[in-house]
């Protein structure tokens, strides 16, 4: 049976991506549902998304009751997520949830509890369903590395026009309610959740304590709004494994693709590196490039004294080979019983608790236990 999707979330959010992914997977987009209590700007974005997709715009309570509705894709701003998730779960819809699950450990736990009580399926967007992450977990589970000693993971979002910002130590805030939405986001939350969830998923254990720092390295906008654009942390897990994590929005010039996600897994037997770089063909071509001049006494360019200087370089480009399992497709496969789950709501709540502990650690400059 074709899944019917209710979109709770508007334009200029990840709902743009999720709607596209559900449609590509053969699902039927039924409506955009506007939750009660959203501010005017966020409600207007729901209307924008509905218009762009040619979908009806309905109050969320009416949308979840539409015949055929089976999944809610939830991408409202962070403070509204517990309420919207609870409403959709109570209506019996499975939940596909934007990352991070919530802005606080308490809100995340509330969502996990609502999912548990309703008995619906739920998955939070993450990288763990990507081929490279699955390969990393297989390497651990197959024992190729022996006992795991440490994991080091990074998530660098190479987007945004960076600037030279003031060189000083950032003073972090332990708790807050403003997560940003339009111009900037808190990147320890927004980017840090990727490596945090990946590492916890790979290890399959719980984090005990965190030591973290945050920084303003790249963006004037982040500095102006007093939110971090970079973060780093050391996380102790309960089986003695130490994880180090770096994350941030680092500017368009920092990598050749929109982002770089990576994990280094250190085991007793070996160390392996996995990353988000897709398999690709490297294309070198003389098209559009002036070739080296012909030299009759050294036509094969064998000798230094007769080679052109500087030597012309071919044009180099990459042709991605694709692959990978989009997280939405993995969610649908999980609901159909054909694939293991990605990050469920309970696991995601723990990941939010790790992030919350990291902020407190950065603010108070000490190790903080994960609640």
């Amino acid at each position, binding site marked *: 049976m074709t899944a019917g999707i209710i979109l709770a979330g508007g334009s200029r959010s990840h709902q743009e991506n999720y709607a596209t992914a559900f449609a590509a997977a053969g699902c039927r987009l039924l409506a955009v549902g506007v939750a009660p209590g959203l501010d005017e700007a966020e409600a207007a974005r729901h209307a924008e998304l509905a218009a762009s997709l040619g979908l009806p715009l309905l109050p969320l309570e009416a949308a979840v009751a539409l015949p055929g509705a089976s999944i809610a894709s939830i991408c409202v701003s962070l403070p509204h997520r517990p309420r919207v998730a609870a409403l959709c779960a109570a209506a019996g819809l499975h939940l596909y949830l934007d990352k991070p699950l919530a802005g606080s450990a308490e809100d995340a736990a509330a969502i996990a509890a609502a999912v548990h009580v309703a008995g619906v399926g739920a998955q939070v967007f993450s990288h763990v369903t990507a081929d490279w992450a699955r390969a990393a977990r297989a390497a651990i589970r197959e024992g190729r590395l022996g006992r795991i000693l*440490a994991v080091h993971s990074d998530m660098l979002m190479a987007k945004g026009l960076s600037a*030279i910002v003031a*060189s000083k130590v950032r003073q972090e805030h332990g708790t807050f309610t403003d997560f940003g939405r339009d111009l900037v986001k808190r990147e320890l939350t927004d980017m840090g959740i990727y490596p945090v969830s990946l590492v916890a998923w790979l290890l399959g254990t719980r984090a005990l304590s965190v*030591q973290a720092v945050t*920084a303003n390295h790249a963006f004037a906008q982040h500095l102006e709004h007093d939110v971090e654009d*970079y973060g780093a942390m*050391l996380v102790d897990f309960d089986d003695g494994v130490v994880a*180090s994590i770096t994350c941030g929005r680092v500017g368009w010039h*920092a990598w050749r693709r929109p982002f770089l996600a*990576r994990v280094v897994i250190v085991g007793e037997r070996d160390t392996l590196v996995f990353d988000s770089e897709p398999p690709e063909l490297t294309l070198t071509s003389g098209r559009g490039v002036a070739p080296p001049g012909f030299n009759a006494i050294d036509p094969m360019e064998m000798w230094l004294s007769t080679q052109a200087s500087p030597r012309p370089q071919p044009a180099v480009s990459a042709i991605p080979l694709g692959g990978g399992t989009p997280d939405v497709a993995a969610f649908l496969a999980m609901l159909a019983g054909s694939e293991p789950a990605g990050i469920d709501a309970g696991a995601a709540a723990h990941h939010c608790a790790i992030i919350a502990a990291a902020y407190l650690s950065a603010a108070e400059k000490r190790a903080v236990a994960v609640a």
Partner: protein
Amino acid sequence: MSGLAALLGRLDAVLVAAVTDGEVGVVRSLRLHVGGLAGDLPEPARLLALGDRLFACPRVREAESGSARLCVWEGGQVATVSASPAPRTVVVLTVLGSGGALHLCERSP
């Protein structure tokens, strides 16, 4: 000198030169993991010394867990470094600056 020590020596020289030449703008962070045979492996403290050279200001906060170190310098720069025994040479590096970045992911066969 071991292969790992030679590689780290060359890396140190090239990194400091690139940063001094302004190739990445104002350098902001260092991320470095080194793996190698136990006898060749540098102490994490030595890896942090690379941060001292790149950032050229005093450290203001240090944290450690296992073989990983987290360090903040006076100008807000951050280094996250680690070193672990491995049967082969592994060097994973990212240096981020205000105008560019330096990356290395080297793993010997």
